[in-house]
């Protein structure tokens, strides 16, 4: 509930004016509905009364019938306005939420960030934001509007009919509604969460089963995997049955309180009429208003049904919004390639819980124009060294310094302006080649982009597909693995960072292209210090010929 409250406040605050207006119109819809039915009932009863005693000719028909028409049209208009306002405000708020989410996740520590990539977690978060639209539209606004309408109803009915009728109707509807919905919310919350957890288990189990089907078939445990799936499905159904039960009970409570309110209004009205306190028409008004006021429950029931799901979504999204640790405010810095020096002194790094360090005692020094190649089998820690050099990981032993200053002390944007890391896995954004390169350098000119693409031997390939305007679908599909990699390299090079950290930049390329690409890197960034992790003899040979030093990592 805490998270739901937080999301609610976040949504409300993002556009208070629109939310308030939407709420006011929601109240208007409900009030007009009650007034329309109440007035109609009053009008017909009063008309019948007047007709009976032959007073039909002097009865004021103009105002009631105009009122009926006004309420009918006004209610429809209010409904339209309310929907447009609240939906617009909610969509606006959710758009803001998405932006904040993006910034919040981007600010996470590097390892958490990379661990999230490509997993279902991201899909979940995105779907969760969608689930949150109900917080305003189906929960908060109907609740507030319902409560306000009941409050208004209390006053108006007390004035037009009788305090006792007003009190009865509002108390029965209010208490019955609160009890029914509150109980349902409380009873179903845990079960809804269990159902959701079981649903996620179903998803992973079916994915596991289909992807590892051959393994499971060989081990003779495919039927067991099926049984595991069915178990989770049964758990889900059991939890859902519990949620359903709670909802049906709530519906029963709401139905009974609506009936009780109407019956009471009718009975009280009748007896007050017989005692002469009320006219029959006033009694009719009270009864019809009681019938119409029960409509406040309609939208709320729908919201209550989604409460579990919304609470869960609010919790997950809320957690992602927390903990901003890295600032991405643009810092006005240009990488100065002529002076920057990177030095690692006896650096070691070990994962929190692992028993052996990934690397230890690594020392290296890089100045402008220098080149160092790290070699060794995969898994020996080459990538870790590059991550340490980029300040994405912090050494657990020794010191990593950039221009004599501890990497951990650098401002994120300054650090990024000076270092460029081509990681082992890169993800390209969707869009044209130009838009991909402009992600790295928005002000890049066409000539500049072409020069960089030429340097990574990609221009001839792209020129055939539309050059800079070539459109790439998800994660660069449309390009081969090697081409995608070179485009990612171009994206790093176009910023001409003072320190270039390249993790196996030419994987998947034939030796001739690999050499051309490496030459291109030097041409584009003549003064940059290059730290290259490599297991390819082509890269090592090239570096040796270009005057670089080679450091062998690990025992392999």
């Amino acid at each position: 509930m805490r998270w739901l409250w937080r999301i609610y406040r976040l949504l409300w605050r993002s556009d208070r004016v629109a939310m308030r207006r939407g709420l006011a119109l929601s109240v208007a819809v409900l009030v007009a509905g009650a007034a329309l039915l109440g007035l109609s009932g009053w009008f017909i009863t009063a008309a019948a009364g007047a007709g009976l005693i032959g007073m039909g000719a002097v009865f004021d028909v103009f105002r009631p019938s105009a009122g009926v028409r006004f309420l009918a049209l006004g209610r429809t208009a209010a409904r339209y306005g309310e929907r447009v306002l609240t939906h617009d405000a909610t969509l606006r708020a959710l758009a803001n939420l998405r932006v904040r989410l993006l910034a919040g996740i981007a600010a996470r520590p590097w390892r958490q960030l990379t661990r999230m990539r490509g997993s279902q977690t991201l899909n979940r978060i995105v779907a969760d934001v969608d689930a949150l639209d109900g917080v305003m539209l189906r929960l908060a606004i109907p609740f507030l509007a319902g409560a306000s309408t009941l409050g208004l109803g209390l006053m108006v009915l007390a004035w037009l009919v009788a305090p006792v009728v007003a009190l009865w109707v509002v108390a029965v509807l209010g208490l019955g509604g609160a009890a029914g919905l509150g109980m349902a919310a409380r009873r179903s919350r845990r079960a809804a969460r269990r159902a959701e957890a079981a649903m996620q288990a179903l998803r992973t189990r079916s994915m596991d089963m289909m992807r590892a089907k051959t393994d499971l078939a060989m081990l003779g445990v495919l039927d067991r995997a099926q049984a595991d799936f069915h178990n989770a499905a049964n758990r889900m159904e059991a939890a859902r049955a519990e949620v359903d039960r709670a909802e049906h009970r709530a519906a029963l409570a709401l139905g009974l309180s609506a009936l009780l309110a109407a019956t009471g209004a009718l009975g009280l009205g009748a007896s007050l009429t017989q005692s002469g306190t009320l006219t029959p028409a006033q009694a009719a008004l009270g009864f019809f208003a009681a019938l119409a006021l029960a409509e406040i429950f309609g939208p709320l029931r729908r919201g209550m049904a989604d409460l579990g799901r919304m609470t869960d979504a609010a919790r997950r999204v809320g957690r992602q919004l927390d903990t901003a640790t890295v600032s991405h405010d643009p810092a006005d810095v240009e990488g100065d390639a002529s002076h920057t020096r990177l030095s690692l002194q006896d650096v070691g790094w070990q994962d929190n819980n692992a028993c052996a360090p990934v690397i230890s005692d690594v020392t290296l020094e890089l100045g402008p124009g220098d080149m160092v190649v790290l070699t060794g089998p995969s898994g020996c820690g080459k990538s870790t060294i590059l991550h340490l050099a980029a300040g994405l990981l912090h050494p657990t032993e020794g010191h990593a310094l950039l221009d004599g200053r501890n990497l951990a002390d650098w401002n994120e944007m300054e650090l990024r302006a000076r270092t460029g890391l081509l990681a082992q896995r890169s993800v390209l954004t969707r869009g044209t080649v130009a838009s991909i390169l402009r992600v790295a350098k928005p002000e890049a000119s066409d000539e500049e982009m072409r020069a960089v693409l030429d340097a990574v031997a990609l221009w001839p390939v792209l020129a055939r597909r539309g050059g800079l305007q070539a459109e790439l679908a998800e994660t660069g599909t449309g390009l081969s693995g090697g081409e995608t990699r070179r485009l990612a390299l171009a994206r790093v090079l176009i910023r001409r960072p003072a320190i270039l950290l390249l993790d196996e930049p030419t994987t998947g390329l034939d030796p001739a292209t690999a050499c051309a690409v490496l030459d291109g890197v030097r041409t584009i960034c003549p003064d940059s210090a290059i730290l290259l992790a490599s297991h390819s003899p082509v890269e090592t040979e090239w570096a040796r010929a270009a005057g670089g030093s080679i450091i062998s990592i690990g025992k392999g």
Partner: protein
Amino acid sequence: MRHRLDADPVAQVAWAVSALLWIPQAWFAASLIAGLLQQSSTQDMTTKLALFALLGGVRVGLDHFAQTRLVRDARRSVATLRQDLLNREAGRSPSDDARPDSGALAALLTEKLDMLIPALTRYQPAMMRVRTVPPVILVLALWHSWAVGLVLLVAGPLIPVFQALVGMAAKQASAQQLEEVSTLNTMLLDRLRALPDLRLLGAVGRMTEDFRLRADALRERSMRVLRLAFLSSTVLELFSAIGVAMVAVYVGFLLLGQIDFGYWASPLNATEGIWLLMLAPAFFEPLRELAAAWHDKAAAEAVNDELDVLQAGEFLPLPGGTGRAPALQGPAHIRTRSLGVQLADHRIVFPDLDIPPGARVALTGPSGSGKSTLLACLAALRTPDHGTIEVAGHVLDPATAAAWRARLGWLPQDVHFLNRSLLGNLLLNGRKVDDPTLQSALQKAQADRIVARLPHGLHTRLGETGVGVSGGEARRLLIARLWLSQADVILADEPTADLDRITADAVTDALLDLSASGRTLIVATHDAALADRMDRVVSLDGGVG
């Protein structure tokens, strides 16, 4: 697998009856109020009040009964469907090219099948009410007053017309809106996936700003669509509001005697007037219910279409089913005779094989020559279209397939770890092993160092939500699993693909160690260095080498 589901008929009838009972219930209320005008007796009024409450209670009970039953029934039907669908897909051969994408199937098995439920619990019952309640009310209204009947008759049939228009507009609008939302979500997902890269490029701030602008533009477009949708449903509400208002005004004027038409023999009395006023909203209510449930039906249709496509597609069964069988007895001799498979676009005939126990054989050939398909046939993962396979002295057929598989070990190209601990993944068959056996298997596969580096060692969670390992590491961990299994025939599909030379050699060594213990080793590979270290190379683009 029957997936065109219908809502429970008894519950639907109960649902409609409860709406119809409003007619007598309203009559008692109307007559009570009319009685107030004529000073009828207290006892008469108490009776009417009691009957009003009683019928109301019956209606609440019927609603509860219908809803409970509808929901329970719908959940059951969908649960059965889910079970059937999973069982069907589990029994599909992993080498069936028509198999659905695992992500799409997971989505279908989880949230998409659930979309069938609202159609059963909301749309179909609403349809039942629309078929029964408005016609009955219309007849009753016409019986008492042709004018009231006319109002309903005009507004009523206009509503289905608008309903159709609204339905079409809403369908289009919701489809467009869904598309817009999914565009926004795709955009968000795209940026989230690329976040590490964006951060390295110092582009997070800029990208966030750009995303804000685009999200805003998308919101404006969605609102344009939504406005249209709201406008169409407003027309529906307008008609019902005007219908109620016209009935109220007509009845009022008639009772006052200011107008004098619209009835048959005698003008309406007070009871009838109030009663007709109460019936007017009930006439329109089912139509509104149906309109609200409209997109539930559209969503269910989409899911049904997807199920149709899946069911109409090809289905290659997994021979021998998904169960476990005791291992086939006899020395692991493999013989094939004139083996052939029919693929979608061409037919492949394989050279005859004779593989004695403990042999090391490489299957080579260009992509598309059928290496993986042959491996799948030998592994009893698919039935060949022609020819025979004889294993351990038995003909390989559905009856012996599971028993043969029990002797096999499999090293796939794309390793998929299940979403559990590394230990759980190593002991998938649920066997218990002691620690020395485990450690020695890891050492023999050269995987002990990998485990040492993982954050929680053997208890590190792998798979989708866990830690990733590199391709070479994953394969070495699987080789450790093969050491732990009783498999004496190892089949490996491209075990060294996408690995650097050093890592590829390490994997090759580990595989050869495994076969040195007497296990048969059959690899399908492109890698000449790996093929060279086997005893025999079978080239699939020509004869036997």
